[in-house]
C-alpha cells in the first residue's frame, strides 16, 4: 500500500516542511518546534469550545476535533499540528465502555483482567474510524504546508489503563498480569496494537504527515520486561503503517532505560522526556537518530530567564543529533500560561 497522490506528503505541501525534514534526519535551517498536548486544556479558546461537550464526544465530532487541533497552530505558530484526540478513542470505537472523568483520566467500566475478559474484545471495524478520517481531512485542508502529526497510544499504555480500569500509580496490576498469565497479556496487547495501528493508519491515510506512538507508562518497566513483553506489540502497532513512507516518532515517559529498545521497533525519531539530556539520549542511541524534546514542563512556570536558558541548553545539546525537533519532555499541563509557549516558539525559531 502507498499513500494517495493527493496526500500532503506527496503533493508538495509538507514533504519539505522543516519538521518533516528534521524527522527524516535532514537538519533544516530553522529548528522546528511543537508541543505535546498543545491542543486542548491550556487554551482558553479550547475551554470555551468544550463547554457542554464531553471530552470523547468532542474527539468524535469532526468539526470540534478539527477546530481544537487548529487552535494552537494559529496561536503559537508551531511547526506542526497534533491531532486532537485521546489514546482510548480506538478502544471506544471498538465497543469498549470508557469515559474521560475530569480530573482523573480515562476510566473503563469493565477492567480487562482475565482471558475471558480479553476474549470479549472484538477486532475493530475500520469503518468505525470515519469521524477520525473526516476530522483529519478537514484539518489538513486548513493546515496548508503545516504538517499534521497523527498519534496513538502504545499497546502497553493502553492495556495498562484497561487492566487497571483507569490511571494508576505504577501499573502494578498490568505488570502482574504480564507474569501471571503471559498469554492473556500477549493477546490483550495484540488487540491494543491492532486498534492503535488502525487508528494511526486512519489518520495517515486521511492526510497526517507523521505518526507518533505514545508509551506514557513505559517508565514503570524494566528493560527486560519491555523487550520481552511489550516491544513486539509496539512493533506490531507500527506494522499497520507498512508501505506508508511517513516518519514515525516513538515517545515514552521515563524511557531512559529503554530508549534503544523503543527505537529498535521501527521508529525513525525518538521523543525524549526531561529526565536525560539530549546529548545523553544521543549517546544511548548510538548516534544517528533524530531526536525530539525535551524541555522540562515544570520549567514552563519558572521565570522567563530560567526557562530561556533551559531552552537554549536543550537546543545546544540537540545539535549532537543529526536533527532535532524541539518539544516538551511531556505534555503541556492544564495550568500552563499559553503565552509562555508562544514565546518558546519565537525563541526557537529565532535561534535557528
Amino acid at each position: 500500500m502507498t499513500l494517495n497522490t493527493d496526500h500532503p506528503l506527496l503533493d508538495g505541501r509538507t514533504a519539505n516542511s522543516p519538521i518533516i525534514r528534521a524527522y527524516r534526519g535532514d537538519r533544516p535551517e530553522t529548528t522546528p518546534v511543537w508541543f505535546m498536548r498543545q491542543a486542548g486544556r491550556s487554551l482558553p479558546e479550547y475551554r470555551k469550545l468544550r463547554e457542554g461537550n464531553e471530552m470523547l464526544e468532542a474527539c468524535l465530532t469532526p468539526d470540534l476535533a478539527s477546530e481544537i487541533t487548529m487552535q494552537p497552530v494559529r496561536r503559537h505558530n508551531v511547526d506542526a499540528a497534533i491531532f486532537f484526540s485521546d489514546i482510548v478513542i480506538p478502544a471506544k470505537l471498538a465497543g469498549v465502555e470508557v469515559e474521560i472523568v475530569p480530573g482523573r483520566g480515562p476510566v473503563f467500566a469493565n477492567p480487562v483482567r482475565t482471558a475471558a475478559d480479553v476474549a470479549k474484545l472484538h477486532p475493530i471495524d475500520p469503518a468505525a474510524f470515519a469521524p477520525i478520517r473526516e476530522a483529519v481531512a478537514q484539518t489538513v485542508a486548513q493546515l496548508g504546508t503545516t504538517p499534521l502529526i497523527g498519534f496513538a497510544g502504545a499497546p502497553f499504555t493502553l492495556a495498562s489503563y484497561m487492566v487497571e480500569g483507569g490511571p494508576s500509580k505504577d501499573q502494578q496490576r498490568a505488570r502482574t498480569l504480564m507474569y501471571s498469565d503471559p498469554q492473556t497479556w500477549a493477546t490483550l496487547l495484540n488487540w491494543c496494537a491492532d486498534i492503535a495501528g488502525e487508528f494511526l493508519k486512519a489518520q495517515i491515510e486521511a492526510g497526517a504527515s507523521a505518526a507518533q506512538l505514545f508509551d506514557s507508562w513505559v517508565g514503570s518497566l524494566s528493560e527486560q520486561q519491555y523487550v520481552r513483553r511489550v516491544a513486539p506489540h509496539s512493533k506490531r502497532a507500527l506494522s499497520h503503517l507498512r508501505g506508508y513512507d511517513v516518519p514515525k516518532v516513538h515517545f515514552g515517559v521515563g524511557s531512559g532505560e529503554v530508549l534503544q529498545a523503543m527505537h529498535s521497533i521501527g521508529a525513525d525519531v525518538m521523543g525524549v522526556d526531561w529526565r536525560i539530556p539530549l546529548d545523553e539520549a544521543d549517546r544511548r542511541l548510538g548516534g544517528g537518530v533524530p531526536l525530539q524534546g525535551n524541555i522540562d514542563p515544570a520549567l514552563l512556570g519558572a521565570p522567563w530567564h530560567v526557562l530561556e536558558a533551559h531552552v537554549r541548553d536543550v537546543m545546544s545539546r540537540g545539535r549532537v543529533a543529526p536533527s532535532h525537533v524541539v518539544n516538551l519532555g511531556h505534555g503541556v499541563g492544564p495550568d500552563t500560561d499559553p503565552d509562555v509557549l508562544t514565546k518558546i516558539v519565537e525563541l526557537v525559531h529565532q535561534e535557528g
Partner: protein
Amino acid sequence: MSTTEFTVVGGGIAGLVVARRLAMAGQTVRLIEASDHLGGTVASHLVGGLNLDAGAESFATRGNTVADLARELGLGDDILSPGDEGAWLQPVDGPALPLPATGILGIPATPLDKDTIAVIGLGGAFRAQLDSLIPWFGKRTDVSLGALVRRRMGKAVVEKLVAPVVHGVYSLHPNDLPLERVATLKERLALHGSLAAAVRSMRHAMPAGTAVQGIRGGINRLVTELAADLTTYGVIVEFERRIESVEALADLDGTVIVAAPGILAPVRGRTVTLATLVLDAPELDAEPRGSGVLVAPGCTKVSARALTHATAKWQWLKEQAEGRHVVRLSYNEVPAGDFAEVARRDAEVLLGVSLPAEAVVDFARRDWTRPAPLAPAERADGVVVVGETVGGTGLAGIVTHANAAADRLLALAADGPAEDEDAAAGDEPNEAAKEVS
C-alpha cells in the same frame, strides 16, 4: 494478512521452539496441534492441589541449550539445581543402598570405597580393583559397555551397579550399549589405562554443578512462555487438527516442518507410565532415599523402575508442598490390578517407610509414549523434521536440534540453500534416569 510461509505440525517443545524462532524472525507461521493444548510431554497436572510437571521435570545442563532458552523466556532467575542428596539403588535382593556418588553410569571411581563394597561385597570390590592392574590395549572398538566393565571390573560391578544405572539412563542392559555411546569413556580409558581412572577424569572434567536443572514452578513453565511468545509474534495456532500422513502434508501452506511422531512413520516406541503420589507422611521428612531410588533390572520386589522423591530433589517444591511429600514412580510396564495401590506399595518398599492408604492425599497416572528414532529410510525427501524422533531423547537434544533446524530454514528463506545436515543429536539421560539423577 500475508500468506503462511511456514506450517509447523505438532505443538510439542520442538514445534514450539521452531515456530517461535521463525515468527520472531518475521516469518508468517501457522502451528497445527492434534490435541487441545501445547507442550507435548512437557505438561503439568494438578495433584493434591499442587501444580506438578506431568512429564519431563528437569533438563540436562549440557550445552546450556535449555537454560539459554529459559533465560530468553524470562525464566532465568528461576533456573534451579536439584539438591545434592544423592540417589539410592534397589538391588535384586536386600534393602536399598546408597549409589556410590563418585561413579559414572554406576562404574565406581574408587572400587574399594565403603558405598561400593556395600553394594557389590568385598570380593566384588577386590575384583573391581584389578582394573588398575589390567593393561588396556584398546584394540577392539565394537565392544559393549557391559563386556568392557565385566572384563576389567568383574560381573558384580556390571550386574549390581552398572546395569541399574544404565537401564535407568538408556533403557538398555550394558551388554547392549555400544561403548561409543558413552561420550569420551573410550578415549579417557586409552589415556589413563584403567576404567576407574577414566571415570575419575570424566568426573573431574564435568562442569561444576549438577548434570540436570529444573525451573521453579516446574519445567512446564517453558510451555506457558513459549505459547505466550507465539501469541506475541502472531503465530496462528490451530488445535485439534490431526495430520495423519505424509500425503496430508501436501495440503498445508508454505514450508512444512514435521514436529510430531506418527506422520512419516507409524509411532513405534515404548510407553513410560508415571505414577505421582502426594503423601502426608512425616517419616519422609528425613528423606530416607535422598533424591530417589533406581531399581536393578530383575528386581521383583517392585514393579517400578525408578522413584523420585520430588520434594527432596527440588527445594522449591518442598516449600510449595508445605510439609507434604511428592513421590513419582516410573514404570515400563504397568502391572495388573489397582495401579494406585501398586504405586503406594512400591513407594513403601523403595522408600523403606510405612505408607498406609490414608497417607495418600492424591494419586495421578500419566502414560507417555517415547517414540523410537526415525529410520533413515523413513525420512521423506525435503521434509524438515524436528522432535524426539530425530533430536535424541531429552529436552537439551531436542531444543538444540530444533534451534538448528530453525536457523537453517531462516538461512534458506534469506538466501537460498544452506547445509542440509541435522545438528548433532546426542542421547541424554531419559525420563527414568532423570528421576534420580
